[in-house]
């Protein structure tokens, strides 16, 4: 099972409609994935020379104020941090690798769920309505977003094993299905310097795309390469800073519906998630073909 949703506004600046619309889509996918819920939002960009990092603390009583003081001593913090339950979004005036080195050395207890100019990633165990409320999704702005409701098959039900998975700058992935060759792929990607936080198969898929993009492939080319290298069942939705893409495995084992209007593109595991969007009844609606990459880029 599992449910995937994606909503991509084709133009314009970050809209306050994004959060509530994504929450409505996720709510429809509760039955498909009652174990955990997660989403990635592409919001306002970090200032020039800075990036955003969404950090997660497994300890609910974590002292975020103390961390902010330490971070502030190590790096410029051009914007105030934003705190949402077990997650906090920091904006750091640093190189990404410099920050990861610092975090690994001083705070290995923290997870980085997403990092980049625009991405923010939130995920937790629980039903979509509860998780959306926990992270204030109803009041969040952005240009595009991906969401996932998980019914676990390949690995444990924890916050860390929830989707989306992000392994590269502004890149994230949600996945319905299961990969059979993820252990072998993880080993080879590890040698290429890709970091993994869990034993989850989807994280490997995200790492694979990060690696391919780093090689200079564009998103479509990276997904076409994945068709050769991934063994298993998958419907994938991928977000980048300005892009959005969908891919189904060659036998289209897992369901997917796409809808497009002049203003937005939406993807969901089932139409009932799309039906909640304004203009859905008049949208062009189709089922993505197997082994075919669909992608959109913001103008």
């Amino acid at each position: 099972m599992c449910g995937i949703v994606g909503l991509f506004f084709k133009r314009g600046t970050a809209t306050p409609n994004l959060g509530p619309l994504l929450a409505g889509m996720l709510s429809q996918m509760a039955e498909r994935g009652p174990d955990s819920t997660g989403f990635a939002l592409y919001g306002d960009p970090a200032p020039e020379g800075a990036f955003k990092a969404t950090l997660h603390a497994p300890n609910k009583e974590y002292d975020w104020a103390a961390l902010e003081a330490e971070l502030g001593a190590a790096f410029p913090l051009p914007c105030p941090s934003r705190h949402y339950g077990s997650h906090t979004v920091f904006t750091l005036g640093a190189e990404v690798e410099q920050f990861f080195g610092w975090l690994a050395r001083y705070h290995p207890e923290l997870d980085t769920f997403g990092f980049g100019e625009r991405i923010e990633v939130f995920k937790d165990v629980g039903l979509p309505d509860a998780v959306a409320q926990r992270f204030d999704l109803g009041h969040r702005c952005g240009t595009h977003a991906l969401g996932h409701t998980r019914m676990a098959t390949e690995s444990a039900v924890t916050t860390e094993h929830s989707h989306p998975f992000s392994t590269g700058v502004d890149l994230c992935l949600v996945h319905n299905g299961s990969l059979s060759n993820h252990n072998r792929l993880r080993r080879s990607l590890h040698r290429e310097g890709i970091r993994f936080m869990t034993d989850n198969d989807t994280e490997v898929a995200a790492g694979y795309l990060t690696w391919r993009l780093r090689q200079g492939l564009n998103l479509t080319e990276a997904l076409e390469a994945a068709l050769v290298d991934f063994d298993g069942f998958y419907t994938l939705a991928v977000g980048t800073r300005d892009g959005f893409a969908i891919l189904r495995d060659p036998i289209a084992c897992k369901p997917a519906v796409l809808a497009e209007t002049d203003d937005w593109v939406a993807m969901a595991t089932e139409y009932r998630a799309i039906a909640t969007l304004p203009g859905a009844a008049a949208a062009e609606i189709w089922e993505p073909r197997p082994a075919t990459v669909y992608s959109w880029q913001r103008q």
Partner: protein
Amino acid sequence: MIEIDLARSSVTALNQRLHQLTHPTDERHWRVLNPNGAHAIAVGLTEPVHVEIKGHVGYYCAGMNAAATIVVEGHAGTGLAENIMSGSVRVRGNASQSAAASGRGGLVVIEGDASARCGISMKGVAVVVAGSVGHMSAFMGQAGTLVVCGDTGQDLGDSIYEAEIFVAGAVASLGADCVEKEMTQADVERVAALLDRAAITADATRFRRYGSARRLYNFHVDHAAEY
């Protein structure tokens, strides 16, 4: 005309009302509003009623239908008219995968395209698709007829038994043990009659016929009438 708005009533309540119809019934014409992709709308109907659904439906719409005429004024999700016994189901838009799966009788008409596995394991149903079908359509079809006015995806009729397939457009590839067969004048007339019954306009002489080479399963011609 009885109108049920699924924005205000549950699918369970709708289906219960349809199941509790007496025979014969005066409540013969139903209209369902705001389906919004809900699952299992109008399943298991056994009375010859007419049900119009105004919008897109989710999974398993019109499943197990017997006797009823169901029209979806939109697209349909996975498993449309699964295990249909009799009656007819028509979709004005596209149907997702496994449309008419394991159908035993009746007629399923898809005015748009059907995706993968259309007519999988069909057992007597007649399926007419005005557009194209996806891969593995009529997989393991045992009896019945699949008529495709457009193209088909890969592995058409894989492991097919005695179902028959007629395609007007291009076949991406045939599945295991599925072969093209001679299209006789009698076949053209049967396709024309089925198109007419489905109210789909197409030139019956353009269709090619596909079926089992009977090499994959232990077929005894003496038993052919039992299929």
